[in-house]
C-alpha cells in the first residue's frame, strides 16, 4: 500500500504544483490556453496557408457559415484562416519576446546582483536609463531604426522588457545571495557559478516566472497594438491586430469582423493572465486575498 504523504513531506515544487492545480481559475486558464495553442500550432493541418491570402471577391463579406466559420472580409478572404495564422505571429512572437527578455534580463540582473560593486552600479544605471523611457516609445524608436518586419518587432518589444526582468532577477539574487544556505555553500568552497545554478536559480525563479507569465499577456496586447498601428507587421501578413485594423471600416455593418478577432485576443490574454495569477498564488499563498 502506498503511504499517504503528510504536508511537510512534499517538496516546494510539489506544493506549488498542488496549489496551482487546486486553483480553478488557473486550470481554466490552462485549458483555454491549450485550446488556443493547439489550434494555432496545427493551423497547417486545419487550413492550408494559401487560404490566408486567397481572395475570393464573389464571397466577400460573408457572415459566419459552414463554409467560412468566421465569415470573410471585404476581399473575400477566409477570416478563420487569417485568425489561425495570425495567432501564430501573436503567440510565437510574444513567447519569443518573453524568452529574449527573460534570458537577457537574467544575464544582466544576475551578473549585477551576483558580482555587485562596480558591475552592479554600471549595469543598473543603464537599466534605469532604459526604464525611464516608456517601453512603447522605446519600441517605436527601435522600429524606426530597423524598419518593418516580424523579427524586428520582436526585438523592439523585447528590448523594452529587458530592464524589468533585469531588476527583478537582480533583487532576487541579492536577497538570496545573503541567505544563510548560500553562505554555507560558499563556505564549502563551491564555485560561484555552481552556487548560482544550483542554489540561487531554483529558489529565486518563482516570482520571475510569475512575472514572465503576466508580462506575456501584456506583450500579446502590445504586438497586436503595434499591428493595429501598422508598425512591425503589415498587411497582408495576418496578425490579430492588423486583422482588426484592415477591417475597421466594415465593422459597423459586419460586426463579426471586429468581434471575432477581438475575442480571440481577449481569450488568449485572459488565459495567460489566469495562469499567471494562479502561479503567483501558488508560489506565494500569502499574497492571495
Amino acid at each position, binding site marked *: 500500500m502506498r503511504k499517504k504523504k503528510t504536508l511537510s513531506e512534499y517538496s516546494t515544487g510539489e506544493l506549488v504544483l498542488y496549489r496551482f492545480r487546486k486553483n480553478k481559475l488557473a486550470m481554466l486558464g490552462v485549458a483555454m490556453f491549450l485550446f488556443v495553442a493547439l489550434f494555432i500550432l496545427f493551423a497547417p493541418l486545419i487550413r492550408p496557408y494559401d487560404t490566408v491570402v486567397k481572395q475570393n471577391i464573389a464571397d466577400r463579406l460573408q457572415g459566419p457559415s459552414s463554409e467560412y466559420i468566421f465569415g470573410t472580409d471585404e476581399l473575400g478572404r477566409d477570416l478563420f484562416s487569417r485568425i489561425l495564422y495570425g495567432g501564430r505571429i501573436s503567440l510565437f512572437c510574444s513567447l519569443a519576446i518573453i524568452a529574449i527578455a527573460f534570458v537577457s534580463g537574467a544575464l544582466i540582473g544576475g551578473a549585477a546582483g551576483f558580482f555587485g560593486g562596480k558591475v552592479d552600479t554600471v549595469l543598473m544605471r*543603464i537599466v534605469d*536609463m532604459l526604464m525611464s523611457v516608456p517601453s512603447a516609445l522605446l519600441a517605436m524608436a527601435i522600429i524606426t531604426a530597423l524598419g518593418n518586419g516580424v523579427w524586428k518587432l520582436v526585438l523592439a518589444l523585447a528590448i523594452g522588457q529587458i530592464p524589468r526582468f533585469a531588476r527583478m532577477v537582480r533583487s532576487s539574487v541579492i536577497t538570496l545571495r545573503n541567505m544563510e544556505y548560500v553562505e554555507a555553500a560558499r563556505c564549502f568552497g563551491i564555485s560561484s557559478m555552481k552556487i548560482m545554478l544550483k542554489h540561487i536559480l531554483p529558489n529565486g525563479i518563482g516570482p520571475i516566472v510569475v512575472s514572465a507569465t503576466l508580462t506575456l499577456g501584456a506583450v500579446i496586447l502590445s504586438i497586436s497594438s503595434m499591428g493595429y498601428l501598422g508598425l512591425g507587421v503589415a498587411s497582408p501578413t495576418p496578425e490579430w491586430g492588423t486583422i482588426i485594423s484592415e477591417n475597421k471600416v466594415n465593422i459597423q455593418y459586419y460586426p463579426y469582423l471586429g468581434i471575432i478577432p477581438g475575442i480571440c485576443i481577449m481569450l488568449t490574454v485572459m488565459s495567460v493572465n489566469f495562469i499567471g495569477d494562479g502561479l503567483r498564488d501558488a508560489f506565494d499563498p500569502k499574497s492571495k486575498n
Partner: protein
Amino acid sequence: MDWLKYALKRLIMLIPVIICVTFILFVILSLAPGDVARMILGADATDEQIAALNHEMGLDRPLLIRYVSYMVDAVQLDFGTSWTGNFDVLEEFSFRLPYTLLVSTLAILFAIAVGVPLGIASAIKQYSLLDYGCTFVVMLLFSMPAFWLGTMCQIFFCLTLRWLPVSGVGSWQSYILPAVILGANTLASMIRMSRTSMLDVIKMDYIRTARAKGNSNKDVIIHHAIRNSLIPVVTQIGINFAGTIGGAVVTENIFAIPGIGSMLINAVKGRDVPVVMGTVIFITVIVCVINLLVDLVCAIIDPRIDLAS
C-alpha cells in the same frame, strides 16, 4: 523646504539621464539600415545628389560628432527639422502636446475617480456581488486590447447610437470616449491596487486599535484606513502614467486626435529620425517629472518618507 530641495535634486539628476537616454537613442536610430537620403530623394536620385544631401544633413560625419552637435543644438532648444514634413520638431511638438496631455490626464483622473472608490468598496465588502463584479471587470479590462475596445466603442456609441462625436477635438464631448478608453487599463489597475491595498490595511493592528478606541466601522475606514491604503495606489498611478502616454498613441490614432501620437506614428513609418528622437526625449522628461510629482505626493501622504535623506 525639504521637498523643494528634493525636487531640485531630482531635476538635476534628470540631466545625466537625458544625456544617456539621448545617446542610447542616437545609437539605436543610427543603426537604421539603408540610406536615409536615398529614401528621402526617391529611387531615381543620383549618387551625387545623395552624397550632397547626406553632407547637408551631416550624416557623413562620425556618430560621436553628430551626437555632440545634436546635443549642442538641443541645449539651444533646436531639435532639428523633420526629414519628411519639413517642420520644426520642437514647434510641432509643443503644438500637439496639449492634446495628448489633456487626454492622458483626463484618462488618469477618470481611472482614479472611478477605480479607487470601487476598489475600496469591494475590499470593504469582500466576497459581495460588487466585489465579484469588480474582479470580473478588472479581468476583462486587463485582457482587452485598448484599440479593439476603442474601435468597438467608437462604432457603437458614435456611429450607431450617435451619442458622441466620432473623432477630432471639436467639442468637449469628443474627449469623453478617448479618455475613457485610454483610462480603461489604468482603471483596472486602480481597482485592483486599491482593493488589495485596502484588504492589507484593514488587517493591520492599528485598525484594531482604532476600533478599540470606539470608532465606528465607517470612521475606521475614513479616518484610519483610506489614507494608509492610498500610499501604494499613488505609486501605481505614477507607473501607469508612463503607460498611458504610450497608450495615447493608439487612442489618438483611433479618434483622430492631433496629439503627439499621430505625429509619432507617421514619423516611425516614415523613419523620420529627428521627430522620433525629439518626441521620445520630451516624453521621457515629462514622465520623469510626473514620477517626481508622484513621489512628492507620496511623501505628503506618508510621513515615514523622508525626502531629506
